[in-house]
């Protein structure tokens, strides 16, 4: 009986210490999210969302790029269904990340935690977990993900409530923070693969053309641009590279 208690408490300590290690590892993500999350809060307010809606956006969706896209589309008067379809297409990449995680997780010992673990998957935490030295234990991953989550949701609410206190010049500069986050996600990938770089450029140019032509609504523009560029990238540009990567 005593042994049992001891075992239980060491396991518990283990869980906590791994969770804490994950939190420490996510510090760069935590810090990097803050200006972007504050910008999201600010922008949501100027788009006319209520505080509750803004909070729910970050707390329930937790996928930054698509949240900004949604704000743009709401502002442009897009239909809810267009926004949801665009979000689905855009966030479907998590499917690959999650498949990858399910293959590398050491053991499926805590299945009740998996919904939480999957909810917390983001590009940033996944990028970290893809590095070879990162721990793949569930408790560690949860620490990593939810520290980022707290930063994202906290930053969003802070931005909504207090963003206006910031000097206008800083607010204007922070309008660019989101795009620099996208660039920070894209450049390391593009550096390693020319076809990824070309695909991104095609995506940008296609979207620019569609936005300029104004044939479709903004909601469809971005969906079309993503699908066109990804198809060209996957089926025309990408030839031999896949073999060397796998």
């Amino acid at each position: 009986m005593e042994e049992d208690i001891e075992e239980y408490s060491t396991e518990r300590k283990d869980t906590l210490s791994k969770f804490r290690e994950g939190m420490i590892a996510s510090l760069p993500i935590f810090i990097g999210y803050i200006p972007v999350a504050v910008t999201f809060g600010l922008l949501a307010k100027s788009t006319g969302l209520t505080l509750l809606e803004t909070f729910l956006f970050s707390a329930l969706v937790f996928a930054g790029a698509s949240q900004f896209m949604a704000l743009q589309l709401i502002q442009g008067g897009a239909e809810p269904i267009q926004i949801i379809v665009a979000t689905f297409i855009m966030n479907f990449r998590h499917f690959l990340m999650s498949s990858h995680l399910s293959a590398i997780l050491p053991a499926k010992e805590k299945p009740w935690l998996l919904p939480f673990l999957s909810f917390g998957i983001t590009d940033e935490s996944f990028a970290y977990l893809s590095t070879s030295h990162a721990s793949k234990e569930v408790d560690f991953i949860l620490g990593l993900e939810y520290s980022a989550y707290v930063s994202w949701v906290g930053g969003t609410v802070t931005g909504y409530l207090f963003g206006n206190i910031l000097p206008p010049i800083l607010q204007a500069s922070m309008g660019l923070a989101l795009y620099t986050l996208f660039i920070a996600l894209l450049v390391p990938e593009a550096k390693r693969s020319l076809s990824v770089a070309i695909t991104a450029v095609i995506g940008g140019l296609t979207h620019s053309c569609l936005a300029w032509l104004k044939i479709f609504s903004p909601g469809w523009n971005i969906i079309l641009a993503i699908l066109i560029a990804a198809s060209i990238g996957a089926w025309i540009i990408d030839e031999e590279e896949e073999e060397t990567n796998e």
Partner: protein
Amino acid sequence: MNNIKIIIGMMIVTFIPRYLPLLAFSRLNIPKPLKKLLRYIFPAALGALILPGAITAIPNYPAAAAAGIATAIVCSWFREEISLTVFLSVIVTLISLYLFGY
């Protein structure tokens, strides 16, 4: 009300692809052409999100935006650290805006 609808819808379509592969436990067999397409969706989406939005991110001051974007590209090329990239670019944008008399 529409916004809540959007949020709930987005939550559902974002959560399902995140959870499905872990729920299925085994490695799902995705056909290769589809896998290829999925690999390219993210860069395509990032490209479409950056352009044309970034150019007009700071109305009337495209040069300041360009300075910030250039900083982000250079910084993320050499140091793959998101927080550093975001902060440096915001600072460079701030300084440029100040110099351009914002």
